[in-house]
């Protein structure tokens, strides 16, 4: 009689479905295989009795108390985030700016048959200049409000920053898009400022609606430490000037962008 292999016996013991009936039938008539199975059984049964430390009914609550302070205000939404109406508003606004600038560029300027690639680049850059300039202006306002917020007199435990938080949250999505575009265009200087700005906006957006004076102070210190307000102002101004020049002169060439990145 051919005996069962160890693998077959372990599989049978652990609930494998393959050839169960045939194995069960063999076991009723084969003492050697039955003994072998008993030996496996003995080891596994002993292991079954290894205790797991008890966690009382309050354990779940204790876990929550430990993790709650580490949770961001909003859960990661993945692709669902793109279904949110406010995202569509941001994307819609950007698409409108792109289309508007494209149409304006096409109809208000006489076509230059010699340099079609240059005019596409001009339109693209003008769009970015207008949109980013506007975005930086809005971001500056939020950061200014937070940086200049006066710490309350002692006794007031919480400060409500829900308005700034909401605006920071809305600005975050646009900021990401502009940063990525700047990176793709090789405008490292602008991408770096937008990257710094994104961190601060994220800090604000992920703060609770009501924060302690200490938390406000630390937010203000972060804004100050990054020198972000200064950078935003400088780049914003630079973009305003650029907007004026691009309206009257050809767009910045790659070499100009490179020069700025170097600087």
């Amino acid at each position: 009689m051919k005996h069962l292999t160890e693998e077959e016996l372990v599989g049978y013991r652990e609930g494998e479905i393959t050839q169960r009936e045939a194995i069960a039938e063999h076991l009723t008539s084969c003492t050697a295989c039955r003994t072998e199975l008993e030996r496996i059984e003995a080891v596994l049964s002993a292991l079954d009795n290894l205790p797991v430390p008890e966690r009382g009914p309050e354990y779940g609550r204790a876990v929550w108390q430990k993790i709650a302070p580490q949770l961001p205000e909003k859960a990661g939404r993945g692709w669902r985030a793109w279904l949110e109406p406010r995202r569509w508003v941001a994307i819609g606004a950007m698409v409108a700016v792109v289309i508007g600038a494209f149409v304006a560029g096409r109809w208000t300027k006489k076509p230059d048959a010699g340099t079609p690639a240059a005019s596409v680049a001009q339109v693209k850059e003008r769009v970015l200049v207008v949109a980013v300039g506007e975005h930086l202006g809005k971001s500056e306002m939020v950061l200014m409000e937070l940086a200049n917020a006066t710490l309350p007199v002692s006794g007031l435990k919480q400060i409500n920053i829900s308005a700034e938080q909401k605006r920071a949250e809305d600005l975050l999505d646009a900021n990401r898009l502009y940063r990525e575009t700047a990176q793709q265009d090789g405008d490292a200087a602008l991408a770096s400022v937008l990257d710094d700005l994104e961190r601060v906006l994220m800090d604000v957006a992920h703060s609770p609606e009501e924060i302690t004076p200490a938390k406000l102070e630390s937010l203000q210190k972060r804004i100050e430490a990054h020198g972000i307000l200064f950078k935003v102002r400088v780049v914003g101004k630079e973009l305003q000037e650029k907007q004026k020049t691009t309206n009257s002169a050809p767009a910045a060439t790659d070499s100009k962008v490179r020069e700025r990145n170097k600087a």
Partner: protein
Amino acid sequence: MTRMSESAGSTPDREALQSAARESDALAVERTLSGERDAFRVLVERHSQQLFRLAYRMTGNEHDAEEVVQEAFLRAYRNLGQFGSRANFGTWAYRIAANYAIDRMRQKRTEDARRSTPSSLAEEQDPLDLVADDRPTPDRLAGNSELRKKMEEALKELSSSERTAFVMRHWEGCAIEEIAAVLESTTSAAKNTVFRSVQKLRRALEPYVGARGALQAKAAGAAPEPRGTEL
């Protein structure tokens, strides 16, 4: 996740309870995603015990197990958007915990290897000292602190994949497909890992518990019932 224990003892009442729990999990997930952070608390309180049991069996110590539980929930919260609402939150969190426990075990193993002390399994001890009683019951055997130490050591000797496969299959009753998903392997490789883990545990522990099997086999004279139900 198909748990053998679940499918084994399924009564209409139990199924109704499980389905109600799943529905309420789905609701808590939706509420959390819509911005109610406190809704996540329901999920944490409901699934913590189950994750702790898994994490403890995988890591072998309470401190690590607690950290696995906390990290699993933090990761689940951060990635909640990726969780399909038709899936079972418990199963999903369970998988996150198992994956994190594997990472942690591997990390610890590397750290231990640096400090490198040879396994105490190699230290020979007369198995008869541990099974002095003629017919030790599993309870008594596990109560024997020396045997318990041997079992813990034998589990530690398993690779992280083997330990995961063994814990998920033997103790948690997970389906082979579920184990394969956590191990990122094929089902036949997962099946093989389960077998290898049992084989290693058997080699390490049989000298200490084998006497019982032999005694019972003689006394019973019939095929033992395998545990759980079929997959």
